[in-house]
């Protein structure tokens, strides 16, 4: 805004121009550390933030509107592209919500597999979060080490469903395909070595004095504020609020395995970091327990009005052929009318799907409550009064992804 080299200052009004004014710094949408296309307009006094205004919407693709023109099954690939770092978790969240709308109960094996892949998604998400967060604070080696492990999980995803990032694996009432025993065994091997890898990351940063000074006491969110702002996930738990939808909701098999909600105490960046590091271990242990307990059985729910019929029956059985054609061209025709909100715990927090159904094969309205959007709204309050370097650390610590925020 002002010419900082002060070229156009002439002698006559130089006194008037000497008045103090904040420096307006536009950080983003193209910036190495804004995790996508977040734009922050910072008013700086020296390096201290006086005012921070986030601008979102650079990645708006109209997912909610697109969903109104797609049948329920076709929306699954759209949910991949919300939080593309942990697309598996979004798929599951969406399918759980739609199944609740339709009143479908999925088989137990499916619940187990969904829990396993959901926790794998949590690990991939937290790995990427740790990688970029540490890189933002300057520890660039953690970045590469995290990607080393993330690669292994993505390989497992590729073996499972053919895609690494935009998986589209769960289906309404089931899954794309079953897992095989070799896959489970390889995953189990991964979970054996993974805690050692987490220790490596901790060796580099956990007790490092520079890391501690950059994170402790910075970006503090009190428990009360966190609740009032509607934060969820690790950002809320870091402030010491024990709230995890996996504990209170009935999806997955979280009630059948032993695990605990990881919480912090002070609500600063370090505590949020600790919560996620602990979640690595909890997720790892959930996956192990699920692999040990997983039962044999079907993976598709017995709900012919809503799930695609078996391929081997389609051409031999008229009933199935009709279901197949109707489900694909028009979507399920017996969806109940009404409104429904279902939330699941994705790695970043509470991902909610709100449906207004008019009984047709397409949602009349689908609203996505994405954690990133809510978290960004808390960013100005956390950042004001802190330094430019802390803004970067704060953005990292609340773990946003703009695909989900802008939808």
């Amino acid at each position, binding site marked *: 805004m002002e010419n900082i080299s002060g070229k156009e200052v002439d002698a006559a009004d130089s006194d008037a121009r000497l008045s103090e004014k904040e420096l307006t710094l536009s950080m983003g949408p193209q910036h190495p550390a804004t995790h996508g296309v977040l734009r922050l307009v910072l008013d700086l006094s020296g390096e201290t933030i006086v005012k921070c205004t986030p601008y979102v919407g650079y990645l708006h693709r109209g997912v909610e509107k697109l969903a109104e023109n797609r049948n329920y099954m076709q929306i699954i690939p759209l949910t991949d592209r919300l939080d593309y770092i942990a697309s598996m978790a979004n798929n599951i969240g969406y399918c759980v919500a739609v199944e609740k709308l339709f009143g479908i109960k999925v088989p137990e094996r499916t619940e187990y597999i969904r829990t396993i892949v959901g926790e794998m998604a949590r690990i991939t998400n937290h790995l990427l979060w740790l990688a970029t967060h540490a890189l933002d604070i300057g520890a660039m080696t953690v970045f590469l080490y995290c990607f080393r492990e993330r690669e292994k999980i993505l390989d497992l995803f590729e073996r499972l469903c053919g895609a690494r990032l935009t998986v589209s694996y769960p289906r309404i009432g089931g899954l794309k395909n079953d897992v095989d025993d070799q896959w489970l065994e390889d995953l189990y091997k991964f979970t054996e070595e993974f805690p050692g890898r987490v220790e490596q990351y901790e060796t580099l940063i956990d007790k490092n004095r520079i890391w501690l000074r950059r994170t402790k006491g910075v970006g503090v969110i009190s428990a009360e504020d966190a609740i009032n702002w509607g934060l969820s996930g690790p950002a809320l738990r870091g402030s010491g609020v024990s709230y995890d939808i996996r504990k209170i909701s009935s999806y997955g098999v979280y009630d059948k395995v032993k695990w605990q909600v990881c919480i912090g105490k002070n609500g600063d960046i370090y505590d949020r970091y600790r919560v996620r590091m602990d979640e690595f271990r909890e997720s790892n242990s959930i996956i192990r327990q699920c692999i040990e307990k997983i039962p044999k059985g079907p993976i598709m729910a017995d709900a012919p009005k809503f799930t695609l019929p078996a391929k081997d029956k389609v051409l031999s059985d008229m009933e199935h052929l009709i279901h197949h054609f109707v489900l694909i061209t028009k979507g399920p025709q017996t969806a109940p009318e009404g409104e429904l909100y279902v939330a699941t715990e994705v790695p970043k927090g509470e991902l909610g799907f709100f449906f207004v159904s008019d009984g047709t094969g397409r949602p009349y309205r689908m609203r996505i409550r994405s954690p990133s959007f809510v978290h960004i709204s808390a960013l100005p309050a956390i950042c004001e009064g802190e*330094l430019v370097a802390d803004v970067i650390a704060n953005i990292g610590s609340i773990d946003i992804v703009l695909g989900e925020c802008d939808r």
Partner: protein
Amino acid sequence: MPEWLWIFIKVFIVVNVLMLHVAYVVYFERKVIGHMQARLGPMRVGWHGLLQPIADGIKLFFKEDIIPSNADKPIFYIAPIIGLLAAIGSLAVIPMWEGFSIADINIGILYILALSSVGSYSVILAGWASNSKYSFLGGLRSSAQVISYEIAMGLSLVGVMMMAGSANLSDIVRAQSEQWFLLPQIVAFFVFLMAALAETNRAPFDLPEAETELVAGYATEYSGIRFGLFFMAEYAGMFVMSALAVICFLGGWSGPDFWIFARVPGIVWFLLKVYAFIFFYFWVRATLPRYRYDQLMGLGWKLFIPLALANIIFTGLIKLL
């Protein structure tokens, strides 16, 4: 041979060797950090990427030189040149082996300190002239950082000068013929090490160009060979600081005095030590996060300067006794 011609030849050799060194130290850094991060580093150009620095140099040379329309052009042009000249100029007083330095002057340490301050002008001026806010903040950070750490560095070297009784770098090396100053001046060495990291803008004190905060700091608006000049200045500065550390604390060109080691020429020992130092720079960069601006200032003023002062008093007391 006239004296001036001999000096000219020496300058020619040193500058050219340094330029080649800068190119390959970048390669060295990419390889070292790459392997530390469980990857390979450059592998494509030449055997194990050995020609990569040359390809990079050619690329930088032929890239479009973009100058922001609102930049203060003369200063914008001159800033990277100041940086490189200051870094190369420092080499004049560095004794590579017994009797070899371009200018064997009595105030060698002061000369290097002075030139490294001049070098910081290039960063400040670049930040100012770019007329970009990120560059500006980078320039501001750099000026504050250089001022604070210059003092700590200067004070840490006072102990060495007291021990050697001279500010002539060759004399300092000769004074270490019996014992390196590393152990008696361990505190000064530590302060110097940190100050050298800060002075050359290396991690964990790379705030002026902190990529994730200020994009590229003072170099944000620079492109092509002008950016390349900053790059060269940074790596040449690293060489100078490592050489200074080797001369002041690690006995310069002296090596072990037995068996075949005694026959190895001094330059080899000197370069070995310097490269060990440079390796340490990379190693630290691969491991540590970055300090915050105010913490860096606090560290400089509240820890390093008092430590260096205490070291001077301590050294003085020992000398008196």
